[in-house]
């Protein structure tokens, strides 16, 4: 199966791209600055005092794990939406560059099946997003774990949810790349889907602002097929902040997002199989 070889090649290519080097550096820098500038004193499992850049942060004394919850919630939103935004822009070029004249003919002349090429690219980007999410979230968990003694895998699970959501976005981006071979259009698709996905998550609430009838029905129909990105972002933040969640609803939304991503990928493969280069 050449799919994994292609995915590995994509990771090698990504390692030499400035976007991803910058992301890795930025995550490392944030973790380093936090690690060096943030001082937390924990007494008997309670957060007694904390200082950032030498300035005392006035927080009531409470259990360290409780005190960390809002922080992990904020970090979860940052990783979720920041990761999706970054991924939509930084990964937009992988599909079009694969289809670049002089490259695609060469790759297709090798003993690789067409679907393996697209599947490999999709998997490579998925692994890339997983690595980014895991690096940031694990760094955060280790940092606060060392400083407070509270080790929890919840922020990591929350980051994995962001990666799974990105797969839906990237499936659509890749399908558009195959049809149009444009990085700008691919990025625009990702960003538009992100915006619409946020809207789809609040569709019941937004629908009440529309007049009952044709416009509301049209809105509900349109948003019905969109991935519920904001719902998943909220669920991810709840997981990170140890807030109880409706696991059935989360699984349904997660399945919906995965089906959306796979359907977009299948459409992309279909176009690719029938396209001349």
């Amino acid at each position, binding site marked *: 199966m*050449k799919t994994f070889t292609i995915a590995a*090649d994509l990771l*090698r290519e990504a390692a030499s791209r400035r976007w991803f080097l910058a992301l890795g550096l930025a995550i490392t820098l944030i973790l380093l600055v936090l690690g060096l500038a943030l001082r937390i004193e924990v007494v008997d499992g309670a957060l007694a005092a904390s200082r950032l850049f030498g300035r005392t942060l006035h927080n009531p004394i409470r259990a360290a794990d409780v005190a960390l919850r809002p922080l992990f919630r904020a970090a979860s939103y940052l990783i979720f939406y920041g990761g999706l935004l970054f991924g939509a822009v930084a990964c937009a070029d992988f599909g079009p560059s694969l289809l670049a004249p002089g490259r695609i*003919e060469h790759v*297709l002349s090798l003993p690789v099946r067409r679907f393996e090429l697209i599947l490999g690219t999709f998997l490579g980007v998925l692994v890339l997003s997983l690595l980014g999410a895991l690096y940031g979230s694990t760094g955060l968990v280790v940092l606060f774990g060392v400083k407070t003694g509270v080790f929890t895998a919840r922020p990591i699970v929350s980051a994995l949810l962001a990666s799974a959501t990105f797969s839906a976005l990237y499936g659509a981006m890749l399908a558009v790349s195959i049809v149009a071979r444009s990085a700008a259009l691919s990025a625009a698709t990702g960003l538009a889907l992100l915006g619409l996905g946020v809207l789809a998550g609040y569709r019941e609430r937004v629908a009440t602002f529309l007049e009952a009838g044709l416009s509301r029905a049209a809105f509900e129909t349109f948003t019905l097929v969109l991935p519920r990105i904001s719902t998943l972002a909220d669920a991810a933040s709840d997981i990170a902040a140890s807030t109880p969640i409706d696991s059935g609803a989360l699984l349904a939304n997660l399945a919906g997002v995965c089906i959306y991503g796979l359907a977009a990928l299948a459409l992309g493969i279909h176009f690719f199989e029938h396209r001349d*280069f």
Partner: protein
Amino acid sequence: MLALAIEARGLCKTYRGWFRSTGHEALVDLDLAIASGAAFGLIGPNGAGKTTFIKALLGVLRPTRGLVRVLGQSPDDPATRARIGYLPERLHLPASFTPLRFLEGVARLKGLSDISHEARHALTRVGLAGDASRRIGGFSKGMRQRLGLAAALLGKPLLLILDEPTDGVDPMGRVEIRTILAEERARGATLFLNSHLLSETERICDRIGILAGGRLVREGPLEALSGSDTRHRLRFAPGSDPEALRAAGLTPTPDPDVFLADTPDPLTLNTLLDRARATGALLVELRPDLRDLEQVLTDALTPPPSSRRSP
């Protein structure tokens, strides 16, 4: 019967736009058979359909109609493509990679076992061993071309399809590439060359096809295409009488010692030679009048006078 490396029968390719009912015919009923071990050169003007034909051979595009077989199999089969080495006209190379890393990637996709050794060996063959750790981004056009050739050579392919292999390569590099191609041929590989450099094609290939408007207008051994059965070139020692030779039935050329003889058969040729020598001229060379490939191409693309429209 010789095994065929390339076989195309009734091959047609029509490019159609999304909103157009008619399309551009890039290949029209193309029939071609190339035996294994041959060195075939495809020439023709821009837009003749050469690249389209190459892409059809590789399964990169699907023919509208007709059959194409490579090494006896369909090019859609990855096992067939594993035995083909291809150098595109403008190979896109990852600028941040080293040539070694690029070749290792290609070797992995070709399913080779000792990828590092294969990649280094290919680099050495094309003269890039000393640049193995440099970034491709800093390579000249000629170096990129050599690297593309190295990628095509990986895995000892049975068929090498090369699109402008010496484009941008310096004269010494061209000699090296010709040597490599000769080695590949000696190994038993079939060469399929598409080049605008007709002199290169002439030197490397023994069989030529001329494509124009998607149709194969000439095809055959190089000698047959460029030679003539009825015209011979005669060189006389300096001091011959040009007027007497012309009177004997020879046609003068810009070179005062060289004359052309148009004769329908060997008997007439010898009679003419006897007449020429009777004038006191000393014959030092006699050979069939071979045209260069440029002339062959020009002749093939020039419509016969009867088909030209009068003004």
